[in-house]
């Protein structure tokens, strides 16, 4: 497929061997006031992998992804995508990444189709090509019947799907998804998974954060575990979980304490 998003500037050329690492951060650090959100993250994601970024709430996953995608300025450290520094060489990076940030932040007053057209044209893809790709994406995402409704009236699942479609429109090399499956019904989740599998099978990279360990276990071949703003484990899925389920491995890694049985004695006893 022709990459129309290729802007002027010496980005990674098609012929050259792609770097083995799609994403690499060194000592990424961010604090908000006194709260250190990300305390020196060295994230590595090999090219072509389906990578999961997991960890409890407040571990710093969203902040890390925002800094890698150029939406949040890090206080220290560096982030590279496809061998180019995100903050020093934004032209090379931004043309080749697709992003679905947390919180379903979309242009609410555009219809689904208009949102895709807007994204494609913003990236300099010719109008006819945007229209063609949009129709295909709308069909695959099963959004054709809602394509002319305003995004503000979409359900959570529909919003995630249109957001993913917008992120895929320019055929990025690396896709960053923040909680893509949160609040999504099983049918839509299945569609999302199918599209993402097809996308990675051609050698593109997906990095996504999630709380749903079963899903990460089923989809990912690479896992990075975050806790308290740091990477606590990272590597191929089989290595990270080491014979246990990923859920058990995670509980062990973040040192979760067993929930006590004390209290709540009234709960469940009928008529108490």
């Amino acid at each position: 497929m022709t990459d129309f998003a290729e802007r002027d500037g010496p980005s990674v050329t098609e012929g050259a061997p792609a770097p083995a690492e799609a994403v690499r951060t060194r000592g990424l650090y961010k604090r908000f006031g006194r709260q250190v959100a990300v305390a020196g993250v060295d994230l590595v994601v090999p090219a072509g992998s389906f990578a999961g970024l997991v960890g409890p709430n407040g571990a710093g996953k969203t902040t890390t992804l925002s800094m890698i995608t150029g939406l949040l300025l890090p206080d220290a450290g560096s982030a590279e995508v496809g061998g180019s520094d995100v903050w020093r060489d934004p032209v090379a990076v931004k043309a080749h990444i697709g992003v679905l940030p947390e919180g379903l932040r979309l242009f609410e007053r555009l219809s689904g189709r208009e949102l895709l057209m807007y994204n494609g044209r913003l990236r300099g893809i010719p109008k006819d090509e945007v229209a063609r790709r949009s129709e295909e994406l709308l069909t695959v995402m099963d959004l054709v019947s809602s394509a002319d409704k305003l995004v503000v009236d979409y359900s959570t699942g529909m919003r995630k799907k249109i957001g993913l479609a917008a992120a895929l429109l320019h055929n990025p090399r690396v896709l960053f998804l923040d909680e893509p499956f949160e609040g999504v019904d099983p049918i839509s989740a299945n569609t999302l998974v199918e599209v993402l599998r097809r996308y990675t099978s051609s050698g593109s990279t997906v990095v996504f954060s999630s709380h749903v360990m079963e899903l990460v276990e089923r989809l990912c071949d690479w896992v990075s575990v975050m806790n308290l703003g740091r990477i606590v484990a990272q590597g191929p899925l089989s290595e990270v979980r080491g014979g246990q389920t990923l859920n058990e491995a995670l509980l062990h890694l973040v040192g979760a304490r067993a929930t006590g049985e004390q209290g709540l004695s009234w709960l469940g006893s009928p008529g108490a």
Partner: protein
Amino acid sequence: MAWLFVRLKLRLIAGNLRGDAMRQIGFVFTLIAAAAVALGGFALIALLRFAPQDVAVDAGMVIFTVIALIWVVGPLLVFGVDETLDPARLVLFPLTARQMAVGMFAASATGPWPLASLIVLLGAVAGLARDVSGLLIGLVAVPLHLAFCLVASRTVTTALSRLLRSRRGRDLLAIGVVFVVLLSQVPNLVINRGVAGPPLELLAGLAALVRWSPPGMAAHAIAGGGLLGLAELAAVGVLVIVLAAVWVAVLRRTLVRADSSTEAASVGRSRFDRLLPGGPFGAVVAKELKYLRREPRGRMGWLSAVGVSTVLLFSLSSGPGGLSGASLAIAVACLTALMLGLQGVNVFGIDGRALWMNAVVYSAPRDLRTDLAARHLAISLAAGPAIAVLAVAGALVAGDLVWAVPALLTAAGALPIALGVGAVTSVITPYTYPQRVNAFTSAAPGQGGVAVAGSFGAMLATALLAAPVVIPVLMGVTWLSVVAVPYGLAVAYGGRRLAATIGYARLPDLLAAVSRPS
């Protein structure tokens, strides 16, 4: 139950203030305002004692009606500020509709504004009562009228609460707010232009209109006293009870009816889009033009700018110091251009949390410059016709259609000046538009100061930059209007350049500033 709701309301007021200095200051101002309204209102109505009897009664009836209207319309404009008022939040508690009605009535009687209303109304007892029976009736009529105001206001908000919770309803309401604000200018214009004859006749006419409404009867009962007063009092009491029954019935129905907010209509595909060039410039122009039509906050700003300009056309031309001749047409057109240009002081605010979609694409200041230019073109496409209409209207009111030409030229220069300045304020003082539309705030909590600073700075800078051209033209050097357009375009270009350089360097901050939770 009533006491529980009163405590809930007090707790909500206190919780809202905790740890937020801006809100605490805001609340102190609310208290000061309520106290001022209470004392000022009391004094003003009490002064009716010194007016002739019939004038005092007429004024009292009209004032009581106005207070009731404020109670009905006011909460609609700020709907959502107070959780005790939304029955949807109470559905899951095991309460009967009657219990809920009593509780919500008690909650809405709690707070600074109900107390202020009570004090203002008590002024009527001092101002209207002529004998002991009037005084005694007044002491009952005032709480009864307050109860009428509260129940009427509750009934309307409850009946509309389903609509108000839906997206479409809130969109409609946002437009309603503009009309209410503009309507408040009508009495001003009517009195200034003497349309309805002498003020006293106008008052008598209004009083006759509301004579048999509950507020009218309550006020008349206080003034008249005696047996007729007692009868009127009884009638108001019965009406309050009937209205309360209606409210309970509406409440009962509202609680179990489905929410209609998920029924979504489709939008047509725009033909105009095809005329626009491909690439980011065309994309942003197309998006902005759609947002002008579809985004309620945008529409609010545009409608009020055009509305205020129309009001200005009449108020500038009337009165002893009124403008006339070419300067009237020019002043009206330029003020319209300024006010429409001010819609661009926070151009990224309208994108809000979606602005990241642009930020993940833009990789040089040039990209941001293209974006700003596209937004300016979209605003100009919409503002142009409005300015033209007002320039022609101004010229017609002033007496010679030819005056529309310099007016239009000067305004066409003033608009890009405002836009260029707005581009810079958009990146220096960006702020988030509040999620909930209401008539009284324009920025997310804590950003009100930034919003005001941005708007005032933009207004001042625009006035200073426009002065070299606009003032000579107003003074009669009409030929200078020819250079207004190139001058304005140059200022706009400079503004965009500066804004793009500043804005690109702080793109992540910009993003955070317009995506605050609100």
